[in-house]
């Protein structure tokens, strides 16, 4: 492989994951760390660490110049951005290229186009992929009123530059529209540097289904099946599974074909995820957005395909053709991932950083984590502690094993959402598949944490 030394421009569990993939492909790893992460698990596992700045993300993990200087100063030839931080920043992808560094991901142009949700909708339509009924960009309140009448209430007001569940507001009627549009625009301008908004029809009984794709620069494209990420709270995923066995097979097949057509059409390279909404009432699916990075929930796909997606990313980025053809990709059993976070569900899910006095994960399943006995969860970053990934022969067995694993999982010293995850996966609705993206919102009252 032409990539010899990879700078890991991320932290937490994904930095550990990337270091492991580097070893798998025989590359060296250099982990860029902030002053708060110098003793992180990724730092311990990597061949080397480089301190790039203080704890504050904007001065370290989001500081493009510091990350680039760290890569050049340590003789790295590639940068893996993980997810979040600089992973979907087109200027950063281009800056890597200008400095002779391989960005492990698609081109800056692709990141830019697909990063704008409105532009991505138009591109999807061009390749025959169905999109949610919605508007073009909204130029003001009056425009929004007209567009919302066309689309039909309730509508979602979305920031064109948003993503990952951020920058979305629901409006149930015309009364709320003015204040929401004004607020959302100001908020989007502040958060994403672009106040452009558009409207989308709100799908009441929605399942969030996404297709994993992988593409090389030689025209090779494969899909690696789909994931069901409908169990969400405030547009943030909590439990993900693969395959999406709760969606009819013909719909899943059509989604996969749409995903491959789009990936092919835009000349995509590296790992990508095409997110769809499945409208169970109408039995229709719509393109939502494309994520141009490795995703948090990639392990469920790995569990059912037996493939190492991050290692594949490194190989594809170094110019190698895809190691598998579509016919080589097989799907075995069912996998469920639970996101274990340092949050206190009994206190409105407030973040709960602090000292982990005992970290006791269950045996016999995959745990992607950066935690250990004595680890101090810093208050500066997101609250993800670990991903519990359980595989079974079918959905029922995977669910039962997940419940068992959650019972055995013990963390002391800080609050976690383990009880909440046990509540979700232990609920009759979960096993029966009777849930949509708004299930948590409707059932949260039924949750009472164990003493």
């Amino acid at each position, binding site marked *: 492989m032409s990539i*010899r*030394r990879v700078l890991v421009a991320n932290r937490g569990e994904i930095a550990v994951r990337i*270091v*492991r993939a*580097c*070893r798998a492909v*025989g*590359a*060296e*790893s*250099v982990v860029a760390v902030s*002053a708060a992460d*110098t*003793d992180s*698990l990724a*730092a*311990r*596992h*990597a*061949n*080397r*660490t*480089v*301190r*790039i*700045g*203080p704890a504050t993300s904007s001065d*370290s993990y989001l500081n*493009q*110049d*510091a990350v*680039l*200087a*760290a890569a050049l*100063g*340590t*003789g790295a030839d590639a940068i893996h951005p993980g997810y979040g931080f600089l992973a979907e920043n087109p200027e950063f992808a281009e800056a890597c290229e200008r*400095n002779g560094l391989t960005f492990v991901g698609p081109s800056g142009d692709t990141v830019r186009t697909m990063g704008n949700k409105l532009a991505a909708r138009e591109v999807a339509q061009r390749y025959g992929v169905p999109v949610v009924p919605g508007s073009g960009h909204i130029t003001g309140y009056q425009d929004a009123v007209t567009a919302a009448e066309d689309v039909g209430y309730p509508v979602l007001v979305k920031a064109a530059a948003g993503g990952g569940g951020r920058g979305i507001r629901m409006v149930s009627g015309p009364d709320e529209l003015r204040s929401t549009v004004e607020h959302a625009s100001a908020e989007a301008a502040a958060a994403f540097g672009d106040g452009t908004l558009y409207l989308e029809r709100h799908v009441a009984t929605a399942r969030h289904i996404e297709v994993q794709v992988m593409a090389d620069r030689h025209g090779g494209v494969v899909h690696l099946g789909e994931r069901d990420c409908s169990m969400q709270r405030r547009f943030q995923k909590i439990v993900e599974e693969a395959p999406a066995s709760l969606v009819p097979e013909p719909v899943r097949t059509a989604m996969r074909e749409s995903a491959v057509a789009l990936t092919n059409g835009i000349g995509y390279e590296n790992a990508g995820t095409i997110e769809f909404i499945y409208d169970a009432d109408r039995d229709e699916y719509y393109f939502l957005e494309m994520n141009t990075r490795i995703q948090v929930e990639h392990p469920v796909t790995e569990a059912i395909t037996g493939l190492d997606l991050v290692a594949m990313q490194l190989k594809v980025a170094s110019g190698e053709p895809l190691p598998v053809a579509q016919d080589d990709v097989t799907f075995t059993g069912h996998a469920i991932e639970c996101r274990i976070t340092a949050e206190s569900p009994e206190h409105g899910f407030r973040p709960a950083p602090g000292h982990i006095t005992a970290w006791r994960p269950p045996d016999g399943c995959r745990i992607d984590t950066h935690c*250990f006995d004595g680890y101090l969860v810093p208050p500066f970053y997101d609250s993800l502690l670990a991903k519990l990934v359980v595989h079974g022969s079918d959905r029922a067995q995977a669910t039962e094993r997940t419940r068992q694993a959650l019972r055995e999982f013990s963390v002391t010293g800080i609050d976690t959402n383990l009880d909440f995850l046990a509540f979700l996966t232990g609920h009759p609705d979960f096993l029966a598949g009777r849930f949509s993206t708004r299930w948590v919102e409707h059932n949260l009252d039924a949750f009472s944490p164990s003493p």
Partner: protein
Amino acid sequence: MELTHDDVLTILDLLDHSNVEYLELEVDGTRIVADRSGTAVPPAESAVLAPQPVAVPAVRAPEPNDPDLVTVPAPVVGVFYRAPEPGAPPFVQVGDAVADDTTVGLVEVMKMFNGVTAGVSGRVAEILVENDAFVEFGQPLLTIRPEPE
């Protein structure tokens, strides 16, 4: 072809007498990496991922032992320069008197030059990092023995 121990020594010897900064050579699965820039990292281990002792960055200079000395850390990650331009005299030498706002060096990060100030008045005691070396954020660059102004 297989590399013998003597072959490797010969290659390293040749390299030693050349102007080559960095060499990577792979013969039949044997890989030799020689780096004279001081930024080399050890080759990747193939062993199963297991907790290891905390990695000590290769270029980290030793912390001063003398508790009276004040350390001047790198304000950013980048390349440390002791002088305003190549060939010019350095900003400071060991023994020079400095005020808290005296510039004692530069750290370049992607063509942006960040001045490093002493932060304390006194005399330069040690210079811990060579000119043109890669430094990490917070890495000690020099030490100063404080003196009242």
